[in-house]
């Protein structure tokens, strides 16, 4: 039984890592342009397809595939920002929200058109599926890499945002765009950079998702994107640490719900996830680490 619980914890940690990666990027984009970007999960999907259909198919080794996928995610997010979101930067918030829904549907449909909706089986090169015994639970090399890569990414991201000139400029821009402009900060470029960073993390999550579950399809980004949104809200929208925490909590909760409840409830996992969201927001309206609205201004 305890090995079973441990196994569930590990599965939750792995799933939570992927949610955290997507949620942190989502939150980063939100905090700099106040955009609820529903297309963010689809960037993860594009990352997954480029990983498996292009880079892995070309026989590249993993140490090339990972940076290449990061680059694709960054480029796709930056291009979407430039083409779609930048022209309506001054428009009301709801316009951006609707637009992102449109972009999401567009990407999914183009994906179906070009690649068919049929899920395809994929796998990462190398010995990533090797099983290890961990106090009775089963862990693959890939699981370990997913958790380690996520923690490293979150650490690097934290250092970037806290210490670097560009990272500080992102925080300044997210607080007060016009004051940032008066400092000489090129806010358009800073915003594009924030999308690129978020996109890179989403791309990485897509790679992990495909590698872990062995299947990719053009709609695969939608539900994780939605869950990342939930994770970001649970953590406190705009707080990167909150988004990461929310991602892990959500991953854990989801696995626990599926693992602990009788199997006939398994298909209601998403209902439980959203129930959890509502519960958290009832108790803590600003999320776990979010600031009150008046402080955020």
């Amino acid at each position: 039984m305890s090995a079973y619980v441990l196994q569930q914890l590990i599965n939750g940690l792995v799933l939570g890592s992927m949610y955290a990666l997507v949620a942190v990027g989502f939150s980063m984009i939100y905090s700099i342009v106040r955009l609820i970007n529903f297309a963010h999960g689809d960037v993860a999907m594009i990352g997954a397809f480029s990983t498996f259909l292009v880079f892995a198919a070309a026989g590249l080794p993993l140490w090339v595939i990972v940076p290449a996928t990061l680059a694709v995610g960054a480029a796709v997010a930056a291009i979407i920002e430039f083409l779609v979101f930048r022209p309506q930067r001054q428009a009301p918030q709801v316009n951006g929200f609707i637009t992102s829904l449109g972009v999401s549907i567009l990407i999914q449909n183009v994906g179906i058109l070009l690649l068919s909706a049929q899920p395809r089986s994929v796998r990462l090169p190398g010995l990533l599926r090797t099983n290890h015994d961990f106090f009775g639970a089963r862990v693959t090399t890939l699981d370990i890499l997913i958790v380690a890569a996520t923690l490293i990414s979150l650490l690097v991201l934290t250092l970037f945002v806290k210490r670097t000139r560009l990272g500080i400029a992102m925080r300044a821009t997210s607080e007060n765009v016009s004051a940032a402009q008066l400092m000489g900060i090129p806010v358009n470029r800073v915003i594009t950079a924030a999308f690129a960073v978020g996109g890179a993390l989403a791309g990485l999550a897509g790679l992990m998702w495909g590698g872990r579950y062995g299947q990719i399809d053009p709609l695969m980004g939608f539900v994780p994107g939605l869950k990342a949104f939930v994770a970001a809200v649970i953590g406190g929208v705009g707080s990167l640490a909150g988004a990461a925490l929310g991602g892990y909590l959500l991953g854990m909760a989801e696995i626990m719900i599926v693992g602990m409840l009788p199997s006939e409830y398994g298909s209601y996992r998403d209902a439980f996830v959203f129930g959890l969201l509502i519960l958290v927001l009832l108790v803590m309206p600003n999320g776990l680490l979010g600031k009150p609205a008046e402080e955020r201004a």
Partner: protein
Amino acid sequence: MPDALLKVESINVWRGASQVLNDVSLSVGQGEIVALLGGNGAGKTSTLSTISGLLRPKSGSITFAGESGPVSLTSLRPENIVKLGIAHCPEGRQVFGGLSVMENLRMGAYLRHDDQIGADVEHYFELFPILRERADLKAGQLSGGEQMMLALTRALMSRPRLLMLDEPSLGLAPQVIDQIFDRIEEIRAQGTTVFLVEQNAAMALEVADRAYVIENGKITISGNASELAEDPSVREAYLGIETTQATGAEIPPMETSS
């Protein structure tokens, strides 16, 4: 007037459906302190924002005497205007509350790549020792006066040739205002030109060489600061001193009975 550093000619600026600046012309000479006075909603902030590129004029021109010749500002992005040597310290200070004092100063020097940034920070910490004490604190935790010192220093970190200040006295205690205005005079003495927007006309006219008055988006009065301080309409509207048109003599205060 010395050679113009900044020349604004007949700008018309709209915000949404309303015209907020109507044919505004003014100039700021090299080494001067020039004040722009006016009441709430007169168009002072809009004037500064148009100069610094946050707003675009529908017509008119803005020319800055750059290091390598005159430059038209009207089509430049804000960061390029900062690069030319214009710093705009915005209304209400607008320090980055979630950033530390040090990070705010770093952002002020965003476009600089020289090795003097640390030395400049050190220099301003000497001038405002309180900022050194607060260096690692979030700017949002500072008092209003400390935030003003930070906003002023942050603007200076770009080493501007023209410093534009939007109501630096707003909401501050008299001693703090005195301290800020002393610094403004020192800044000018060290060679930086100052364009000062104020509702506090008494303070502004004390330090300024020349001044403009703006009402309803139009410049209505301009002249030397000392002349404006004696101008009956300025005294009445902006200095709160009632005057009689004929003699300019002050009416004695009315008896207040209880």
